[in-house]
């Protein structure tokens, strides 16, 4: 029995010795494997409030202060209610997951607000692509960038001028 303990201890010892040995390699091979892992998404900043998609709303609402307008919509048949908070310049939409609300999207309503990267309604398509790059999917009149669990969507008037900007949560 004693010997078993000794044995196990030696094993542990051996392990800890090898730690140093494998350490460096593993770190990298993990890097390699975790390449596809989701990075942080787009974040909307109002003042010093960071609005992160799919984040719990309580704190965010707290620091955004009193909304100018509030609306809640009971979705057909289901208990959950989608809430809409209107602030000057943008709207915040939430979705519920059992009793808790999460950020669904932030929609700009006028050019008084701008994205963290500095785009606002009225800017041109070129500027968008300059700022956010070529890696987007575009439908008839919109450009959508996806990053982590969030999307940034620009709707273009006559394919040229931004008529709407929206941060969207990618829910699954």
């Amino acid at each position: 029995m004693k010997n078993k303990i000794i044995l196990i201890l030696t094993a542990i010892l051996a392990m800890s010795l090898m730690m140093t040995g494998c350490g460096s390699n593993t770190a990298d091979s993990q890097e390699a494997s975790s390449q596809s892992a989701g990075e942080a998404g787009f974040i909307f900043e109002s003042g010093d409030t960071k609005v992160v998609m799919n984040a719990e709303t309580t704190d965010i609402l707290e620091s955004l202060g009193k909304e100018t307008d509030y609306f809640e919509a009971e979705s057909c048949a289901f208990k959950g209610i989608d809430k809409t908070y209107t602030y000057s310049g943008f709207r915040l939409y939430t979705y519920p997951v059992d009793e808790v609300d999460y950020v669904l999207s932030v929609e700009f309503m006028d050019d008084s607000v701008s994205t963290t990267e500095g785009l606002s309604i009225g800017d041109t398509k070129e500027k968008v692509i300059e700022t956010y790059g070529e890696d987007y999917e575009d439908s008839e009149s919109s450009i959508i960038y996806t990053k982590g669990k969030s999307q940034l969507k620009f709707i273009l008037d006559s394919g040229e001028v931004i008529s709407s900007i929206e941060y969207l949560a990618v829910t699954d």
Partner: protein
Amino acid sequence: MLFTSYNFILFLVIVFILYYCIPKKFRWILLLFASYFFYAQAGVELLLFLLSTTVSTYIVSLQLLRLSGTQKAYIAKNKTVLNKEAKKAYKSKIKKKQWKWLLACLFFNFGVLAIFKYTNFTIANINSLITAFGGTKQLNFLNLVLPMGISFYMFQTMGYLIDVYRGTVQAERNIGKLALFVSFFPQLVQGPISRYNDLSRTLFEKQAFNSSNVWFGLQRILWGYLKKMVIADRILPAVNTIINAPEDYQGAYVLAGMIFYAIELYADFTGGIDIVIGIGQIFGIEMTENFNRPYFSKNITEYWRRWHITMGTWFKDYLFYPISICKPMRKLSKWSRNHLGEAVGRKLPVYISTLVVWFVTGLWHGASWNFITWGVFNGVIILLSGECAPLYQWFHKRFRVENKIWYSAFQILRTFLLMSSLRLFDCYRDVKTAFSMFGTLFTKWNYEVFFNGSMLELGISTADYMVLLLGVLLLLLVSLRQRKGSVRQQMAEKPITVNLLAVYLLFMAIIILGAYGIGYDASQFIYNQF
């Protein structure tokens, strides 16, 4: 096509019905088609891998056959003139030729395996070396899809080839049959790794419908599904919660994780094998058993005799022995006898080949340092316990605990925990984490979490725990029954109504308690990924 998908069930039913409708002599051909259809579901282009292995093996095996044929003929012809030496010389000449062929084929096939399984791993390591030496240039990863089940059919087929080379197996002249041996669909994805002599006995036979075979096979399949769907997939969320957030779940959680994973892995892997062997049985095909109640092992060596048996024996026969008794090794051993003393010379071969084998075993499980470390540790511990064997014997004799139940129980528990802690390596994202998590077992005393309800925060509910508890108890019960031989046999001897009721309950348990459908993410069998 996951075994647990509706499509697979449908596929199976259709194949089953066809199998017994068509004339006996075509039945193995149907299985061949079925197998290729099954494999094609993963991607038609993947069939190329299957084919390349099959064809290359076919050609080479026939070459080997031809050569030994000529050898016989030659010797027979010149019996009179040839003296012993000449005969030997000729034989070794032939053997060399055969050896070349064999080598070429092994090289080609394992080459394919290596490229698809280990390229990115190698790149990762090269990159890390580059950075280690202050380089900035990094190689890009290739995106190679690992062909389904390649580790299994590769080993099985190469085993066959080596056997042909050794002359213990008569090379198969019908490429169709060889193709079926390589691709037989139930075992294609997760073994067991069959030997040609074992499998071919029933695989190509003209199978007649045998109701008791079908009945037994069916029960085995259900039993497998119960393990996989009711136990393994139900406990899965808890395991993932724990191992995916090592920073949050330490100490007691690691212990819980170890045990949960032990349960999951057992239920998943043995369940999968039950399904495979059961399917074989309903087609009247016998496959080698892959497990023998492993968690009842009293030491690690025994454990590896009883867990994933077909892999163990494969490595033993095709890697361990060849290495440990090859000429250079014998020379080495002789040399060290003379220079380093009896004991060393005696052990050296065993030590070297053991470590090699376990390194490869680790590598076989996956291209990552986790598995390699895991493998090497198995090897080390096996050797260590080998070293301690005399001490044990002394201890056993001294205290006369050998056959005391409580002592056996202790040994079993000890082995179980040992193996579970080794598995930490294939749980956690990298070796470092595995070590530090193992450390927290002793440093972080938060064992209260077992009682303060934290266990319900892991993603499985009280109801789940209840099901799991019952499930595990059932597994235990059946394992204990198995000591008295086949449980299904024992059931069959009971009145038919009892037997039917049991099977019925099994069936209902799967339907109702199975973790399948919407709300559960359909999960692969763990061993499909190797």
